[in-house]
Each structure stands twice: as structure tokens, then as C-alpha cells.
């Protein structure tokens, strides 16, 4: 009976030892996070909301891969339940109660089943997007802990703890369990510890409140150092968030630059940031940067991250289209785009090392308020022959139409003319800023030139303050995002509406009476800055449905749509790849057999229309609606 008594102490003791080891390993890791700069964190609020953030928001993302979701529920639920139940058995009444061990054995059994599900993703051959390395031993450790735990608990439940089997089973459980706890520092189990803490101290808590918290945070231009050059320049909770990465590779599957063979892999980027502040990090074992080089360069909290000779090549940094597909897909809620922009800010503001081809547009933005260096008065040239009143005449209008950079483009001028004619048709009282409209500065901001962005933002806010209007309507989702979400930090709070939303309102109010165009087959391409950045996916589809076109969806649509390649300054950075992003997107559109790809953004129009040999026409929602309205007369 002594054997049984000791085993009821030693087995729970093992779990307590695991917890202690995990705590030690996590605190060694925490010492690295503390290298980061200070950040204000609402601790109590975050802690209180942790269960909800995990069970609702994280689960929402994880569940997109049904297998991974089930696997995770079984293995993580089983592991937690079995470990907590075993740890509680340190209390003699529980440890001596045999039916309790039946319950423990059941929990370990569930864990074992989950471990096999984990193993099935990696053996005999791992799924392509997963990382190898230390992740490959995870199922082995899990199986050892779960099987050892099951056998030990069964022996405790049904007797036989004196036999030879008990020490063997306990040793197996100890090997697996302590191995798992040890892996909290460098291995796969880190995602559990860092991930939970990351959910508490998330730098964008608004994400969990159901609003799109996607605006870039304004940079203090008087700070001693601008942007992030070394890992220690990131806020500590950002470093923590990179440690939460579980290397699942969902980001690389979603990344348009990765798909195009440009040297960017979001997973690798995050892992390079981790390796940057953790000098003893094991080697990366996932997919590399396409066409990129092997990792090199110094490590450490004060080692430069970006450079031809550093860990991250500048081409990697400038390949990002800021489409947020990686952020959308990340089950650990990591903010990749924020990291990219922080690194770009340092490159641009402190080193002046923009990509060569981006220097011209950014310089023109700074000097003329337009990335093409064109006269601001020429913005309304597209509307020759149309009645386009400048707001300066009356000083007020119900709707201020923000034209954006697309107005200079001949092709996009067609869209804007269609929109202006629709607004006239519906009797909307609208006006434009005309020569007073400067660029919103979106391009400069995504390329890291925060100084130019802030100057343009302040100038535009001052201009808008002089006029009275109820809302701003724009056909450019980039301008929409900047005006709606990023200008409030500079004192400009406006109601900003995308033209598709306004057109839908006008149809529903009966002010536009479109006919039906049932002969057209259309697929709608969601702009990143409308769908992912602002969560607006329904209005454009509702307009298409109102005009009765035959609508098909691409495999990737809505918030999970693929980028056209036109955002984040990627077209002006023009990092070479093996393929072009818009070509890939048009190939996806071709799978729907639609004759028309409907767009709602000047960048998407330009990128997709520039695809050679495309079978489908590119038409803006406004153009299609105008055609329907004219057909309905």
C-alpha cells in the first residue's frame, strides 16, 4: 500500500514540477520581452476578457480549418483537464479516491487521442504550411505524457500500482510532461504561454470589441528614435505577440506576396523578429522567403533587423502590400502589418532608404500633395463636361465627394464620371474640394513616411474644417480608411461612406431605379481596405443583386479575399517576384467563369485591368449600376 500512497503523491507532484518548470521557462522568456519599450496595457480588463477573447475571437479564426479546430479542442482541452485534475490529486482525499483516477485516466485518454491527431498532421509527412524543427517532437511528447498519464491513472484506479508497470508509466509521463514544460521557452508550447498573455495585453484591444481596429497608430515625430530598427525598439507587448506565433503557416498561405514568389513570408518575418531578440533561438524550420537567402546577420536586442546583410532583407520589407490577409488569418492575433510599418518607418524616416522607385512618388507627395506630382487643380479634369461643383462656392453640401488619386487616371475617370452621373440622377446635393483636395497621404504612411503623412493629414483636416458637410463619400477605400479611421488622431472626425454604400442607400430609398442586367455574369473582388480594414463586404454585393446580375463568388472573397497587389506602396516599390499578384487574382476570378470582375477601388481597377490576356472585363460597381439605370429608363 506504500507504493500506492507514494504514487498518489509523486504523480500529482510531477504535474506541479511541470508547472514549476513551465513557469521558470516562461519567466526566462519574459526577461526577453522586457527588453521592449513600455506600453500601456489595461491588465484587469484584459484578464477579465481573456476567456471571451480565446473562446470567441481565437476560435473564430481557428475554426476556419475544421481539422485544426477539433484537434486543438481535444488535445488542449484534454491536456489542461488531465493536468489540472492530476495536480488537484495532491489533496489526500482526492488522491485516495479511486473513482477520481478513472476520471483522470479518461482525461488523459482524450489527450492521447488528440496527440494522435497532432501527429497525423506531421507524420509520415508534415503539412506543407507547418514548420518542422522542434514542432516535429511535439506529438511525441504529447503521446508520451498522455499514454504515461493514462496508464498511471488506470493503475491508481484499479490497483497494480506496486507492480513494475507503474514506474515505467510514470517515467514515460514524466519524460513527456517535463519535455512539454521545457518547450515553453523555445519550443512549440511557447505559443500557449505567450499566446494567453498576448490575448490579455493585446496592442489592439479594439479587435475584440467587434470594431475594426485597423488604423495605424500615429508616431510621435519628436521621439528620439523614429520607427523600429532593432528588436528593443518594439513595445514589449509586441515582442510578446511575436513569441505567440505557433508557426502554423496560415499567414503564408494567405500572403499575396508569398504566392507571387516575392521574398516575403509573414511567418518567417515574425520568426526572424523572434530570433532577433532571442539569440539562442533554434533554427527556423518552415518555408523560406521565396527566392530569399538563408538567415544571416547579428542577433540580439540591439542588432539591426533590416539590411542587405541583416536578418531581414529590405526587399522582404517592401514586398508587403499591407493587405492584412496574414493578420486576418492569424489564430494568435499577431499584427504583422504593424510590425512591417514600424520597420519601414525607421528605414524611411531615419535612413532615407526607401526603395529606389518609391522615392519619386513620396517626394512628390511631400512637395506637391500628389504622388504623381500633378497639379491639384487637374484632379477634376476627368469631369470635363460634367457639372462638378466645388464646395468653395457655397461653403456647404450634404455630401462631400472625395475624389482621391484615381481621378488623375484616365481609366478610373470613367468610374468617377459614372458615379457623378448617378449622384446627379438621384438628386444628391454634393460638391468636391477641387484644387483644395490634397492626397490623404495613405501611400506615404504605408511606406513609413509618417512625417509627410502627418503634414498632409493636418493640411486636409484644416481644409475640411472650413466647410460644412454631412458626410464624405469616396470611391477609394484607401482614402476612406485614412479619412475614417486615421484622421481622428489629427482632429478630423467625419462620417465617411464608401460609394457602394451610398449607392445602395439611394437604390433602397427609391432615388435610383436601376433596370436589371440578367445577362451579365459578375464576380466581385473585395478591396482589402474596404473588406478587411473596414469590414464592409455586403453593400457592393447588395448593389450587384439589385441590378439582377448573375453573381458568382471567388474561392477567396469577403474578409478573406486576396489582394490585387496595389496596396501599401507595393506597386511603386515594385519588388521583383516570380509572378504578379494581379495575375494570380485574375486567374482566381477566371475560375468562376464570370465575364466581368466588379471592383470598387481605383487601385484594384488599375492592377486588375493591367493583367495581360485577361478574359474578363474590369468594371466598377458604379459603372455597372449606371448601365443598369440607363437600361431601366
Amino acid at each position, binding site marked *: 500500500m506504500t507504493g500506492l500512497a507514494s504514487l498518489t503523491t509523486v504523480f500529482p507532484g510531477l504535474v506541479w514540477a511541470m508547472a514549476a518548470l513551465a513557469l521558470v521557462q516562461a519567466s526566462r522568456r519574459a526577461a526577453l520581452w522586457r527588453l521592449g519599450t513600455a506600453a500601456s496595457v489595461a491588465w484587469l480588463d484584459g484578464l477579465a476578457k481573456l476567456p471571451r477573447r480565446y473562446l470567441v475571437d481565437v476560435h473564430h479564426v481557428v475554426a476556419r480549418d475544421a481539422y485544426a479546430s477539433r484537434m486543438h479542442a481535444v488535445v488542449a482541452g484534454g491536456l489542461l483537464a488531465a493536468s489540472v485534475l492530476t495536480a488537484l490529486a495532491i489533496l489526500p482525499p482526492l488522491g485516495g479516491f479511486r473513482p477520481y483516477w478513472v476520471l483522470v485516466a479518461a482525461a488523459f485518454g482524450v489527450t492521447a487521442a488528440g496527440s494522435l491527431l497532432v501527429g497525423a498532421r506531421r507524420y509520415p509527412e508534415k503539412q506543407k504550411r507547418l514548420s518542422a524543427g522542434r514542432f516535429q517532437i511535439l506529438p511525441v511528447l504529447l503521446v508520451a505524457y498522455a499514454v504515461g498519464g493514462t496508464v498511471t491513472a488506470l493503475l491508481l484506479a484499479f490497483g497494480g500500482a506496486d507492480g513494475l508497470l507503474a514506474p515505467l508509466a510514470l517515467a514515460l509521463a514524466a519524460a513527456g510532461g517535463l519535455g512539454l514544460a521545457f518547450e515553453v521557452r523555445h519550443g512549440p508550447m511557447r505559443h500557449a504561454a505567450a499566446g494567453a498573455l498576448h490575448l490579455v495585453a493585446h496592442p489592439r484591444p479594439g479587435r475584440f470589441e467587434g470594431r475594426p481596429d485597423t488604423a495605424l497608430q500615429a508616431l510621435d515625430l519628436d521621439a528620439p528614435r523614429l520607427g523600429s530598427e532593432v528588436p528593443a525598439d518594439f513595445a514589449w507587448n509586441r515582442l510578446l505577440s511575436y513569441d505567440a506565433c505557433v508557426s502554423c503557416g496560415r499567414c503564408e498561405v494567405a500572403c499575396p506576396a508569398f504566392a507571387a514568389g516575392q521574398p516575403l513570408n509573414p511567418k518567417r518575418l515574425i520568426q526572424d523578429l523572434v530570433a532577433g531578440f532571442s539569440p539562442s533561438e533554434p533554427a527556423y524550420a518552415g518555408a523560406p522567403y521565396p527566392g530569399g537567402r538563408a538567415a544571416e546577420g547579428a542577433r540580439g536586442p540591439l542588432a539591426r533587423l533590416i539590411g542587405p546583410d541583416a536578418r531581414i532583407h529590405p526587399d522582404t520589407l517592401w514586398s508587403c502590400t499591407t493587405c492584412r490577409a496574414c493578420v486576418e488569418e492569424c489564430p494568435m492575433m499577431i499584427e504583422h502589418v504593424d510590425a512591417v510599418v514600424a520597420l519601414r518607418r525607421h528605414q524611411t524616416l531615419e*535612413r532615407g532608404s526607401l526603395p529606389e522607385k518609391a522615392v519619386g512618388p*513620396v517626394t512628390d507627395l511631400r512637395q*506637391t500633395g500628389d504622388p504623381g506630382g500633378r*497639379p491639384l487643380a487637374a484632379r477634376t479634369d476627368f469631369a470635363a463636361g460634367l457639372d462638378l461643383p466645388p464646395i468653395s462656392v457655397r461653403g456647404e453640401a450634404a455630401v462631400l465627394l472625395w475624389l482621391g488619386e484615381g481621378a488623375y487616371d484616365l481609366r478610373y475617370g470613367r468610374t468617377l464620371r459614372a458615379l457623378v452621373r448617378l449622384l446627379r440622377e438621384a438628386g444628391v446635393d454634393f460638391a468636391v474640394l477641387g484644387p483644395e483636395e490634397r492626397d490623404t497621404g495613405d501611400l506615404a504612411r504605408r511606406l513609413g513616411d509618417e512625417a509627410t503623412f502627418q503634414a498632409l493629414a493636418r493640411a486636409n483636416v484644416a481644409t475640411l474644417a472650413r466647410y460644412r458637410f454631412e458626410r464624405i463619400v469616396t470611391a477609394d477605400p484607401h482614402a476612406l480608411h485614412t479619412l475614417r479611421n486615421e484622421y481622428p488622431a489629427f482632429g478630423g472626425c467625419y462620417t465617411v461612406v464608401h460609394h457602394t454604400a451610398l449607392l445602395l442607400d439611394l437604390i433602397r430609398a427609391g432615388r435610383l431605379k436601376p433596370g436589371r442586367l440578367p445577362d451579365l455574369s459578375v464576380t466581385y473582388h473585395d478591396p482589402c481596405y474596404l473588406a478587411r480594414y473596414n469590414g464592409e463586404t455586403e453593400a457592393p454585393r447588395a448593389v450587384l443583386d439589385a441590378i439582377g446580375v448573375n453573381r458568382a463568388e471567388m474561392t477567396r472573397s469577403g474578409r478573406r479575399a486576396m489582394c490585387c497587389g496595389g496596396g501599401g506602396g507595393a506597386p511603386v516599390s515594385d519588388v521583383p517576384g516570380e509572378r504578379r499578384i494581379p495575375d494570380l487574382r485574375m486567374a482566381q476570378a477566371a475560375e468562376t467563369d464570370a465575364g466581368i470582375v466588379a471592383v470598387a477601388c481605383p487601385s484594384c481597377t488599375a492592377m486588375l485591368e493591367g493583367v495581360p490576356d485577361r478574359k474578363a472585363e474590369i468594371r466598377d460597381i458604379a459603372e455597372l449600376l449606371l448601365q443598369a439605370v440607363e437600361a431601366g429608363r
Partner: protein
Amino acid sequence: MKIAILLSAGRHPVSGAAVLPRLEAQAIRLAAGLGQHIGLHAGPEAAVVAEALGQGLAHIQHAALPEEADPVPALATCLAALAPDLVLAGRRGQGGAETGIVPYAVADRLGYPLIPDIIAAAPGEEAGTLHLDQSLGRGARRRVTIRGPVVATVHPDAPASFAYAYGQARRGVIEPVVGALAPHPAPVPAVEERPYRRRPKLVKGAPAGSSAAERLKAATGEAGPASSGRLLVRPDPDEAAREILAHLRRIGVLAAPRDPR
């Protein structure tokens, strides 16, 4: 090597905003590859050239002058004190109160030679010498080796300027030149000023009404005036002078010789 860059208060050709002229930004890049460089501006406001601090220049000397004063004496005084090996300037002004004559006037006053339209600069093999590559237009280049100090103007074909870095601009220093610089009134230009008028470009001998390809061939190819020149290698000076005069008469710059009766 010490390089001084003359900075002027330019205006953007489209927006009219006060900007650093493009050529001077390119001059900074040329100088950055050579050695220690400093900017020099003479005018009422230093803020107008502060943009240069973000484009690779760490230090600007500013000689404060009244609005209408002539900057050349002040620049010459500052340059004499700085004693640079190379003075770089833009080849023309860009919309502001500045003018492309200034580098010539400064060189004249200091007695320095002036090499126009350079696109590259490198130290020569001998100490104190410089290799300056001039652009002659249409891709032609000429390397000049010269002993400094020398004034050189920068051609737009020079390498593009550095990107503007706000952080560097914050750290740059504008230092006022101490010591009173007596303001000189602006010189009355010895030339007649007229408003600019576009003149049609005439391509002589271009066959009217023919295709674009034929006109191009006539202008540049074997058939046109470009092919009618004669190549003289080390000609006798008299013969060379006669040839030049004949050419100038042919294209109508000089009147035909008076009939020697």
C-alpha cells in the same frame, strides 16, 4: 576632401512650394561620395534650404542677407573662409529668386575654374586633382581632370538624389555665418530681359509630309545634315577656323562674306 554645395531657395514647378532644387539635391549625393561636405546658402531665410538636411547634408552655413541683396559677394567671402576643394551648384535655378549665373559669378570672383554639367566626380590619382565627368547631351560624356579648387555645376543626368529622411533633417544643423557681411545691392543685369516665348524647333532638311521614321532618319541618319559634317583630326588652326566659319555661315549664324571687290 572638402566640398561646399551652394544651396538656393527653389520652388516646385507644379505646386510652387519652397523646395530644394533637384539639381542641388543631386549635388549633395555627388558630394557624399567624395568626402566632408557642407551646404552654403545666402539669403534672407535659412528655413527654405532646411530640406537639404534630410537629403544627406548634415551641416549648412547660412549667410543672412536682405531680400534684394546680391548673394555673390557673401558666398565668395564664405567660400574663401571655407577653402573647399570643390564647389558644387545646380546648373540652373528652379523657380525661385535664384539664378544659374551665380556659380559663374562666384567662380569669377574667386578666380576658380568652372566645369559645367558634371554627372560624376571622383578624386584623381594625383593628390589635389579631381576627375569630373561632364554630360555633353545625348549620352555623350567627357572626363575632365583638374586640379582644385574648382566650381562645378551639376547636370540632371547625375545620379538621383537621396530620399528625404525626416529623422536626419531633425538632427541637421544650420549655422549662421558670424561676422557682418555687408549687403551689396543686386547687380543690374547687363542683359535685356524679355518674357519667355516658345519658339518652334526647326529641323533643317526634314522632308515635309513624309513619315516619322523618314524625318528621324533625315535628322540623325546618313541622309540628313548630321551626316554632312567633315571630321578633321588635328587640323591646322587656320583650316579649322575656316571650317568653323563655313559651318556657321551654312547654318545662318554668320552673314555670308562680303564680296571682295
